[in-house]
């Protein structure tokens, strides 16, 4: 139990640190940070209120405290261009990003695990080496370039799938296929490699030899006996890889015109819309921390032995 409490408490300094870093970044912004946070067209009364809240005339430490209070209230400022509340925009776009990330995760998990098992079972053969090369290739491709090529191939040449956009109703799934596979590909490659290693390790255990000696068929040994024990490092990687989905979604959403926070962040970058950029960075970091927390807690549940070992600071 103490492991869980400790792990949850550990997120507090991380979250504080994230707020410090974004605070420093905000201080470094060109121009007046208050104006930056509120927007050029902000009501002077609002400006005054934020100024009082943040107290830009006060010492930096007090300013930071004010900033922290704002964040605790979920206040992220307003877009310099649309004057929309950044919090509102993010709340509206976040589900789209999560949908895309979940689809990509599904794709990469299925592809990665299957490929990894395939490689482990065919260890040392030509096919193993080919698949290893391909998975290294998958990690090496720039996401945005891959996305463009897939659009060209499947939307322009073969005309199978829509090139971009989100769609709605029953046809919406077709819009998800290309961005999700683009986003999931490099994770699938990474996952395939870790599955291969983990599976090879499990397959060399004595209990697998026993299962084989009993005359069980290869698929039963692999999927029933070995698979479960292969899963622990695989599950960890799936969770830890969440950061790469957040990174990738910035590029993937831009290419595919997907209305999520990744594209929102990029629009913010192009317009130098600082509150939007900082809002996205904060949201991304917060999501990342929460997912890591969830993975660690889940990890403890999956393998009771971890509870003691992982309680040590890693």
């Amino acid at each position, binding site marked *: 139990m103490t492991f869980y409490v400790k792990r949850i408490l550990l997120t507090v300094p991380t979250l504080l640190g994230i707020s410090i870093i974004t605070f420093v970044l905000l201080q470094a912004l060109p121009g007046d940070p208050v104006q930056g946070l509120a927007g050029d067209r902000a009501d002077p009364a609002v400006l005054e209120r934020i100024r009082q809240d943040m107290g830009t005339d006060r010492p930096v430490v007090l300013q930071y405290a004010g900033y922290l209070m704002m964040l605790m209230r979920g206040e992220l400022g307003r877009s310099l261009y649309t004057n929309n509340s950044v919090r509102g925009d993010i709340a509206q776009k976040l589900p789209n990003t999560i949908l895309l990330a979940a689809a990509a995760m599904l794709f990469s998990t299925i592809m990665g695990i299957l490929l990894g098992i395939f490689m482990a079972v065919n260890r040392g053969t030509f096919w193993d080496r080919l698949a*290893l090369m391909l998975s290294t290739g998958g990690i090496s491709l720039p996401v945005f370039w891959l996305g463009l090529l897939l659009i060209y191939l499947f939307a322009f040449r073969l005309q199978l799938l829509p090139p971009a956009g989100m769609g709605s109703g029953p046809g919406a799934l077709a819009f998800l296929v290309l961005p999700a596979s683009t986003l999931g590909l490099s994770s699938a490659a990474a996952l395939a490699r870790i599955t291969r290693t983990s599976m090879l390790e499990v397959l060399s255990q004595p209990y697998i030899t026993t299962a084989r000696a009993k005359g069980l068929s290869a698929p039963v040994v692999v999927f029933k006996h070995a698979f479960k024990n292969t899963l622990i490092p695989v599950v960890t990687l799936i969770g830890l890889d969440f*950061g790469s989905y957040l990174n990738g979604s910035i590029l993937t959403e831009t290419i595919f015109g997907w209305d999520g926070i990744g594209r929102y962040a990029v629009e913010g970058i192009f317009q130098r819309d600082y509150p939007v*950029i900082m809002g*996205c960075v904060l949201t*991304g970091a917060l999501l990342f921390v929460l997912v890591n927390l969830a993975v660690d807690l889940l990890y403890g549940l999956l393998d009771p032995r971890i509870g003691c070992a992982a309680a040590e*600071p890693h």
Partner: protein
Amino acid sequence: MKAGLLFIRRNPAMCAATTVITLLIATALFAPLIAPFDPLVIDLGVVKQAPGSGHLFGTDTLGRDIFSRVVYGARTSLLIGLSATVLSVLIGLLAGMLAGYAGGAADMCITMVTDLFLAFPSLLLAIAISVLLPPGLFSVTLALCLVGWASFARLFRAITISLKERSFVEAARAMGCSHLRIMARHLLPHCLPIVMIAATIKVGGFILAESALSFLGLGIQPPEPTWGAMISLHRSYLPSAGWMVLFPGIAIALTVFAFNILGDCLRDKLDPDLRV
């Protein structure tokens, strides 16, 4: 000679990767000699020409030679990828080894900062930093460094902790070696193989990140040719004039692939325990 041939036969992948990387570095160094055209010169008479004898990789919408631009792009990518790696290894070395060796409060503070930097999705943090700085070589390298050093610090710390109670360190201490000498002469050599593997793979990662920043317009600014920006600029021409997007992309993928393969091979050779 014979040993060399044997090495090639045993490690074809490693040789191929090393060759590609050597060629890329040579390309970057001797770009003015290799590129047949000035990468910046606009020639509206040869706009959007398909790859052929005159222009090996074709020309872009302004009539600039794509091959020359790809060659010069190698300069930017490799310079940023390599210098960001060296710098983040150095920062990681200082922070990680100090934390691991000193332990106690210093360790706690450094680990906290390290974990903090690892708590951001890397590209997002790099974007946030690049947005604030005037775009250019320096800001991209700095952004990548700030994002990349933490994983090296964690690595150095872990290795240092695993080594510092070993008897050879104790022996060195008993002989009166200073802490600095123990770290530099006794611990560092043990870290190097693993760090070399991690660094090689990181070069590829940094080059990918640089291309992503350029793609988003946060890298080296036009008209300087970078692979990422070339793809971004011409992406709408993919159906009609695909070579403008295809060649810079191949350049990125090939470079990153070579570094990743080299990293994997080094791992197999230097550290069998970590074999994937």
